[in-house]
């Protein structure tokens, strides 16, 4: 498969997704003595185009590597970043690709990508239990890290009223409200 430059990759996303591409950014950083580049591409897409974006990454790299999905509670929204890497296996060629999707808190749903990348299962289970994002079509709905007796409706990564505040042990000398971002 032909390897594209970061700029060409961003352009290919523009062609493939059209208006559904909200924002894109290329980050480059020179490293050490030889000043080789460490490159990251950030792509922000609408949820409707999320599956298309992942399928598009599949056209750039046969088995795209998904490192992790990171989550952030932004108040009214929840932001998911799918950290992909493509073009691995070649010296200095690999690119980090952060695929960002923002979900409104009243509609926290995202389609699964386990049919495209089977290894995405653990991290999808994790965002379900930790952030309360419903992953539609996930083959294994069980919790991953949280124990079975953990209360329903509490999501450890949230900073709103569904966060873990009531479960925190308040250490001597600390304030009760400590812990809310």
């Amino acid at each position, binding site marked *: 498969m032909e390897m594209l430059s970061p700029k060409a990759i961003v352009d290919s996303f523009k062609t493939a997704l059209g208006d559904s591409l909200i924002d894109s950014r290329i980050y480059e950083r020179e490293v050490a*003595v030889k000043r080789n580049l460490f490159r990251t591409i950030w792509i922000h897409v609408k949820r409707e185009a999320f599956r298309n974006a992942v399928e598009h990454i599949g056209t750039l790299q046969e088995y795209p*590597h998904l490192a992790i999905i990171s989550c952030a509670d932004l108040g009214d929204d929840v932001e998911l970043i799918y950290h992909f890497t493509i*073009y691995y296996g070649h010296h200095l060629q690999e690119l*980090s690709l952060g695929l960002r999707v923002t979900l409104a808190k009243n509609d926290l749903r995202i389609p699964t990508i386990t049919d495209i990348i089977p290894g995405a299962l653990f991290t999808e289970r994790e965002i379900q239990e930790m952030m309360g994002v419903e992953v539609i079509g996930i083959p294994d709905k069980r919790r991953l890290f949280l124990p079975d007796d953990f209360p329903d409706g509490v999501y450890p990564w949230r900073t709103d009223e569904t966060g873990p505040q009531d479960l925190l042990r308040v250490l001597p000398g600390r304030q009760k409200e400590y812990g809310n971002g």
Partner: protein
Amino acid sequence: MAMDETKTRYTIPVGPIHPALKEPIRLDLEVDGEEIVDVDVIVGQVHRGMEWLGMNRNNPIQNIYLSERVCGICNICHPFAYIMAVEQAAGITPPERAEYIRVIVAEMERIHSHLLWAGVAAHEIGFDTVFYLVWRVREEIMDLMEYVTGNRVTKAMFQIGGVRRDITEEQFPRVRQSLDYYKSIFNQLKTVFLDDWTIRMRTRNVGILKTEDALKLLTVGPTGRASGVPKDVRQDQPYSAYADLDVKAITPDMLTGTVVGDVYDRIIVRLLEVKQSIEIIEQCLNEMPPGPIVAEGKTAKLLNTLTKAEGEGVGRAEAPRGEVIHYVRLEAGRETLSNWKIRAPTYTNLMAVPIMLKGGQIADVPIAFASIDPCMSCTNRAIVVDLKANKKSLLTGEELHKLSVQKTRNLKRDESTR
């Protein structure tokens, strides 16, 4: 016909006390007689909510030391990935000399981790002589780490924008002495692990992970490379001083010409990586540029900069077990991190465990499971299911270890009577 009617399966839970590495994880094994039919991995016994601490309690500098405690063995690669993410987010460039020192300590960690694993692997198959031998030679690298960093385990070498200790010219001979020691015994270790028939018998064609499965299940590190996936962050997207060095991902075909993807291949990869690490350290010592070791020496000033900084960054480092990735976001005016996500290599490697164990025997569980070098404190349990008697039974780590030792003895007896 009569055989089929009596055919039943059991579920045997192994853990949460770990069968191989004495770390908490539960494997639910579904067995049909001795054969493993299905495996379920249950994790979460040591989830400590470290990311939450980083986002609510600690400032970014305190987080370096917290990230060092994610795992006792990977206490270099976690802070390494973490500081790189923060440096990207805050726009701090570390001096070149610091990059070289970082790589030297990271490679020392790799030599230590692979030797420790080799000892554990020998113990899992009941070959305790090798276990003692390897752990004895491991002492040398522990001493060297203490000499260079001041500590044998948590080394506290990293600072955002550099390192906290220099490696001076006067220290080079002592470092070279240790490296020469490992070079002198490397062939002996290679003979012990690759030519010994007990080890070969227990590891060849055990716990096979095919290239395609490794790619689909996002397997990283030596586990992935042993299955023929040439993925190594040091080669693919070099960070720090690795960008100056030509590191090549090690796959087992370099030595044997073929990729089987079994436990034996994982031994080959780790062994060759020890040699590679020695070479990298030597190259770093030779090419290390002079200059300062930290961009901003005053902690209060650095903290001030970090509080004002706004941005995000992804730090990726090749840990002894595979790729570690830290995602960090800084928000202006906030003393703690706005977002922090850690992914340790065992997190994804665990998904490959069911495939490795399926079709194997219960006695192969310890060595096959240990072959991914799992780290539960990084990730965070296996039950054995037997359909033949339709009852659940519990195997303790000791029983499982006994089964494994017994298998080695049986194989040896069969071999000698042949």
